[in-house]
């Protein structure tokens, strides 16, 4: 933000884990990046009190001494935004981990500063403005083919405007090259603004946009239980709570793989190192279902694993969402996965504890809910500043409630600020029913907004069919209570049929293996056909049962096994073949009826 000021230097007097206090710091600004101690650890000012500053340090503080200097940088904690981010793995404060590895070792050393993007690489730049053009924040000045499937649009930074005075012709340039000079019409040294291929943005300030739009287009994830039952709009926010082993991470990976977004930002926030490695090894091999290119060519990873410094974990969420907003402002749809926001909340709690703040619920600081709200409100579908393109950021946050108890503070507050709630259920995952999203406790508030899209693109009966299936499942739930007490045998035939049909929906439709080559992703058209055929079977069977045909006769036809296997037997491209199964159902029932 602000230009470089004179360097201020304070002196450390207190050290307590990642929290350090320094004296003689007048002139430091809130959220300024500072260098701490002789080791030059990276820190951020988090409170100012007279001549004292409190600093959270993004690296391990072992060996730091009282009396060592703290040097200000004059800039806020920011991310560097420009070509070269796609396919990268960053730590919580946007240091590229591959570069850190080359510079130091396989283990993370301290006090190393590396640029967030490659400043030496030359990019093919297509300049799209000419001398005399009037530009303002958000206008596109050039485009860069960043990967074979991704075009990076170079934007005038928000808040900057003026008339193009000089401009380079298209060619190969590094990110540091001045592409255009704008005459801002302001006096003094602000008269000319240089536009380069990159700019910086402070992570804690949301990037501005022209206007907010309704999230009327669904984020298609290829997961049946989500797309059909609890859809998320592009620009919406969702919460995935689940105890350990309930399948949060696998689900987040599935969403990162198959969501129809242009850019994926995946934040591994305080989670396992091997999970990030898995993404790193797997994504380059996997193909984007939309264009057949490697998935890594649209993915940015932020890995601040559980054993990396806790304050960088706190920052990682903001780093991720700011990067997501930048791509949104170019007019792209971005999906951001944060796994897990509970670890971020715990980082807040840990730092708050070190600051000796008064705790609220379960030791969390009282500002937990406002921080969560600020984060989730950065999701949205917008009309971008300047260029006027439509872009969106969808946020999907995993929550890890202690003991799987959804009444804990992070889950309850997150629930207030997100519009979709995909509750993972331990009983389902114990039975290896994946994705283990509970269909009775989950909800989506986006349905009304995305209804038209489904009606236009898939089928106008999409949601009435869904409601019908959901009613069947909730009736089944009621019957299961009875079965638990007296057994299935005593139920009358029509209720037995309900139980059977619900089982079919659960096994044949809701269960979806992320490891299956055929079924890992299921296109909406196939989803609709599958559910329609299952419900068709149910409705025809119901008619017969009401006429007194024994349920055993209906179940004997072998149709059940066919219906529960159709997800694997029929691929996405040949989903029309599902109609053959419908014909089989009809001929089977026709025969029974005429008998």
């Amino acid at each position, binding site marked *: 933000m602000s230009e470089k000021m004179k360097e201020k230097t304070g002196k450390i007097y207190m050290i307590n884990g990642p929290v350090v206090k320094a004296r003689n710091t007048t002139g430091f600004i809130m959220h300024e990046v500072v260098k701490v101690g002789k080791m030059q650890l990276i820190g951020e000012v988090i409170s100012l009190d007279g001549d004292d500053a409190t600093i959270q340090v993004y690296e391990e503080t072992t060996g730091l001494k009282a*009396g060592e200097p703290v040097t200000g940088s004059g800039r806020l904690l920011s991310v560097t935004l420009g070509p070269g981010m796609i396919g990268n793995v960053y730590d919580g404060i946007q240091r590229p981990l591959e570069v850190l590895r080359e510079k130091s070792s396989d283990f993370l050393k301290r006090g190393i500063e590396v640029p967030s993007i490659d400043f030496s690489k030359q990019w093919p730049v297509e300049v799209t403005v000419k001398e005399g053009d009037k530009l303002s924040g958000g206008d596109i000045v050039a485009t860069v083919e960043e990967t074979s499937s991704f075009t990076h649009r170079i934007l005038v930074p928000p808040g900057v405007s003026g008339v193009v005075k000089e401009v380079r012709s298209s060619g190969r340039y590094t990110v540091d090259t001045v592409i255009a000079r704008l005459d801002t019409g302001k006096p003094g040294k602000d008269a000319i603004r240089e536009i380069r291929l990159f700019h910086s943005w402070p992570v804690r300030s949301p990037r501005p946009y022209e206007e907010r739009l309704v999230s009327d287009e669904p984020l298609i994830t290829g997961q049946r239980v989500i797309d059909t039952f609890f859809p998320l709009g592009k620009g919406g926010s969702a919460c995935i709570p689940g105890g350990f082993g309930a399948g949060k991470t696998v689900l987040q990976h599935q969403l990162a793989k198959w969501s129809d977004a242009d850019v994926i930002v995946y934040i591994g926030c*305080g989670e396992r190192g091997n999970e990030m490695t898995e993404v790193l090894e797997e994504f380059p091999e996997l193909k984007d279902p939309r264009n057949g290119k490697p998935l890594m060519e649209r993915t940015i990873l932020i890995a601040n694993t559980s054993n990396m410094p806790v304050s960088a974990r706190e920052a990682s969420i903001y780093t991720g969402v700011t990067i997501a907003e930048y791509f949104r402002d170019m007019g792209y749809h971005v999906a951001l996965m944060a796994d897990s926001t509970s670890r971020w909340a715990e980082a807040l709690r840990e730092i708050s504890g070190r600051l000796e703040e008064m705790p609220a619920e379960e030791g969390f600081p009282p500002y937990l809910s406002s921080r969560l709200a600020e984060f989730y409100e950065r999701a949205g579908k917008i009309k971008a500043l300047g260029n006027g393109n439509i872009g969106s950021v969808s946020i999907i946050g995993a929550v890890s409630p*202690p003991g799987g*108890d959804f009444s804990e503070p992070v889950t309850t507050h997150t629930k207030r600020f997100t519009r979709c709630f995909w509750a993972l259920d331990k009983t389902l995952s114990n039975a290896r029913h994946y994705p283990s999203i509970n269909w009775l406790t989950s909800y989506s508030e986006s349905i009304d907004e995305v209804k038209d899209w489904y009606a236009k693109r898939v089928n106008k009966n999409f949601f009435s069919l869904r409601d019908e299936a959901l009613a069947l499942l909730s009736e089944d739930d009621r019957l299961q209570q009875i079965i638990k007490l007296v057994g299935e045998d005593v139920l009358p035939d029509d209720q037995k049929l309900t139980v059977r049909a619900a089982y079919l929906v659960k096994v044949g439709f809701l269960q979806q293996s992320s490891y299956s080559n055929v079924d890992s992703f299921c296109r909406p058209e196939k989803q609709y056909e599958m559910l329609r055929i299952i419900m068709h079977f149910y409705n025809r069977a119901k008619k017969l049962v009401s006429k007194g045909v024994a349920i055993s006769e209906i179940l004997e036809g072998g149709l059940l096994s066919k219906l529960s296997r159709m997800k694997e037997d029929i691929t996405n491209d040949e989903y029309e073949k599902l109609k053959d199964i419908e014909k089989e159902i009809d001929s089977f029932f026709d025969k029974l009826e005429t008998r």
Partner: protein
Amino acid sequence: MPVREYLGLARVNGPLIFIEKVKDISYNEVVEISFGEAKKFGQVVMINDDMAVIQVFQGTEGLSIDKTSIKFSGKPLEIKLSEDILGRTFNGIGIPIDKGSEIIGGEYRDINGEPINPAARKYPRNYIETGISAIDGLMTIIRGQKLPLFSGNGLPHNRLAVQITRQARIKGDESERFAIVFAAMGINHDSARYILSSFEESGALRNVVTFLNLADDPTIERIATPRMALTAAEYLAFEKEMHVLVILTDMTNYCEALRELSTARGEVPSRKGYPGYLYSDLASIYERAGMIKGRKGSITQLPILSMPNDDITHPIPDLTGYITEGQVVLDRELFRKGIYPPINILLSLSRLMKDSIGEGFTREDHPHIYSQLFSAYSRVQEVRALASIIGEEELIDVDKMYLKFGRAFEGEFIKQGENENRSIEETLDIAWRVLGYLPKDELTRLSLDEINRYYTRRTDEDMAEIIRAVSAGKKSRDGEAAP
């Protein structure tokens, strides 16, 4: 760095001492505390102006305010390492206690280590065959994984850990060097002796590094013990190219020590009085497992923790489960039924197995068998609950079949001898045998191909025959091939 020595303390409180008017102190540095003949070690845990707070590893008994002297070393807690540590025994803070010589040569390492750069990690893919059906079939351990045993007091976790250690091997990879690092935290002498003597019997003792902080040893030392052990493990794995299995037992005692320290420091507690940073602290231990690109060795962790009151939602097992790559949960009810190993498969999980089983790794039917056994066994639980209300006789036929399957599954698949070492093929064949109790239509997780190849419907008579054959010691798997 000049060594600085100060005389006299400002305050003593539990395991902490406060010292004033000191200069040039660095965070986390080690101090030597002497009072008369006694020598203790401590570590700086907080600095405020010219005051420092020091946690004393061996407890503060016998320290006085005026006559205690403190020597600052200027270095964090370190351990001296060379290949000579193999076969040696150390106390909780890395001092040899086996009457052997000091470690000669070697180098000092900071026990806190450094986090592995996630971009440098290699994703673990080699499965370890333990010869235990429940584990190999349903929660396969992968080299480089961290997989804790969740247990309870009185359950046979030590026997199981010993059996895994004794039988574990990687197919076609016998030539590589391996080592075991064993860290005992607050367990009793008998348990420690049992584990060590079993290493001795298997002839592995030469490859074992032992860190002992037993129940009657100073509590605060326990904070350092797992870090000592893992620093040794990292040295052996990533510099000496060995495959290291680390057994940490009992993590619950470690967490208790952490709570004690945190309370003494007057920190804001979170759940059940444990510090708010328990997750990060545990992660700094568990995440030190894994493999690194371009390096040969590996660290596989097998922490053991006893769930207080058998409660899996207690903060210790709960936070552990969030960090580790799965868990093996022992179950008191199975134990009472006389089933060893009493592994509750529904609660157990291995997160890394999915990429390391099936064709090219174990056998092509493994992933589906895995899924089928879980779904069938979870149905068994529902049927059992129902049967306990309405009686077994009232169940519908298919539910009765599930009950039979459940008994066979527990009695033949899970249950096995302490010295029984089953190959993965045997394990999968037993799985098909017990699934034979269910009709074909129920096997929705298996492909028709697999069913045609492996499935044979079993009746009671067949099973009785098989059980007789097995008890007579005959191989019973002839004629299991598909019709």
